[in-house]
């Protein structure tokens, strides 16, 4: 299955990952080889087989809806690359 540079540009958009032209070219070749390999899954007859999502067989694990320990504002902000005393700073997203 061919993976074109246009496919890679689409995937870049979906995954918010900016790749340069040389990277896009290399990625298309490498992805084509890997997708070619996983293509073998198509030969397996899976009629009537349910997809498995959780091997532990767990479903809708809940806990009591009560507040418990949580990060302080200072802790929550501590790793933000740009912040002030009370908030994380981001570029302007709405023009007035």
């Amino acid at each position: 299955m061919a993976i074109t540079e246009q496919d890679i540009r689409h995937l870049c958009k979906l995954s918010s990952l900016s790749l340069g032209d040389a990277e896009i070219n290399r990625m298309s070749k490498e992805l084509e080889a890997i997708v070619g390999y996983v293509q073998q899954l198509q030969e397996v007859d899976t009629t009537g087989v349910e997809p498995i999502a959780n091997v532990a067989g767990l479903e809708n694990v809940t806990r009591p809806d009560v507040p418990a320990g949580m990060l302080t504002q200072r802790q929550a902000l501590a790793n933000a690359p740009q912040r002030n005393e009370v908030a994380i700073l981001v570029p302007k997203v709405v023009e007035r």
Partner: protein
Amino acid sequence: MSTAIAIAAAVQAGQSARIEVDHALERAQRDTTNAVIRIHAERARAAASRVDQRIAAGERLPLAGVPIAVKDNLCVEGLETTACSKILAGFIPPYTATAVARLEQAGAVVVATTNMDEFAFGSSNETSAYGPVRNPRDPTRIPGGSSGGSAAAVAAGIVPLALGSDTGGSIRQPASLCGVVGMKPTYGCVSRYGLIAFGSSLDQIGPLATTVADAGLCLEVMAGHDGFDSTSAQRPTAGLAAAGLNRTIPSGLRVGYVPAHATGLASGVAARLEAAKRQLAQAGATLVPIEMPHETYAVAVYYVIATGEAASNLSRFDGIRYGHRTAQPATLQALYGQSRAEGFGWEAKRRIMLGTYALSAGYYDAYYAQAQRVRTMVVQAFERAYASVDVLLGATAPTTAFALGDKVDDPMAMYMNDVCTIPSNLSGHPAVSVPFGVGADGLPVGVQVLAPALQEALLFRVAQVVEDGAL
């Protein structure tokens, strides 16, 4: 270097924990393999003093004063944790992973953080932002991955015990290549709270150690339900450490093996596996050849599911709340795209692309859903096998450690390293790699014991009989 059990016994009997911890810190300083990327001397000495105080106050601590190393994807409050990725440089977690917290509560002392493949994406420890790790048995070789630093730190005698994480073999394969014990518990056995997620339906935290008994003790301390991880199992976990001390196998034990596997193994590895089979037969086990249909598809299933989950998990790295942010982005979208492009290494980018492809509209059913269906068939094959045998025996890795740089430009060749270990991640079953001599090249070979879900006690018991025949 003493075993963890011997160190804990000595410290419990009155020897200062500071002595063992200071020795481990010195060994970490002298590390020549690049296994250790951060040393926590001050914190470790303070923790050792607290252990001494607790022992003096009459507490019994199963891991009293045992120096341990922790893979760089396990959060420890106040210690930089990066998953060996540039995108997390400088990240200081505000909390500690449950697995680490339980070991510390039991008296273990974290002395160092270990190197790993970036976000655990790799089988040779060559994708780390901190550079590759060298195999302590031969510095021209890779240590395996992704827990290559933890395996090398134990093999080099820096610490008796280290933590790794295993998504497709990342504990067991480096354990095999470095000549140490590496164990992946049942999915849900150990809480993953504080583990930087890779493939959430596959990831497990587990021990690397010099003996099966040490691995059993470590697991017993870590295991058990944790309210912070809703996938952690509600079940009693006592008895794992004791299982590590009973050096016999249950009478009538049936050990399955898959004859078809032999064709993919290097001759030295195949010879050691045969020797391990003889060892178990002499110990009284019955060896039973079995078939595992659909297992040949396991690597393909894995690379669709693991990358799909990885692409989703890595979407949190957006340059906003933590991690690297690009300088002066023109737009918010550019901030995301450029921060991620600058922060992630090539293997991470490739896995994000593959995972996004497998999950994208038009391809989801053909790739991700189909992989999940074939995964069901792999799980069913295990269930059929365990109807006629008690445990399975196989190789851990198809070869011994290969040379640094050998496979770094060939992703498919690299991915095939995990062919022996991936099936038990897909099924969620526990498995342990036990060192079993060396191959034709003089490098370590591990053999793998696999058991049904939550049968860790049986797994350790059989593994210890294998271990006893390794010399």
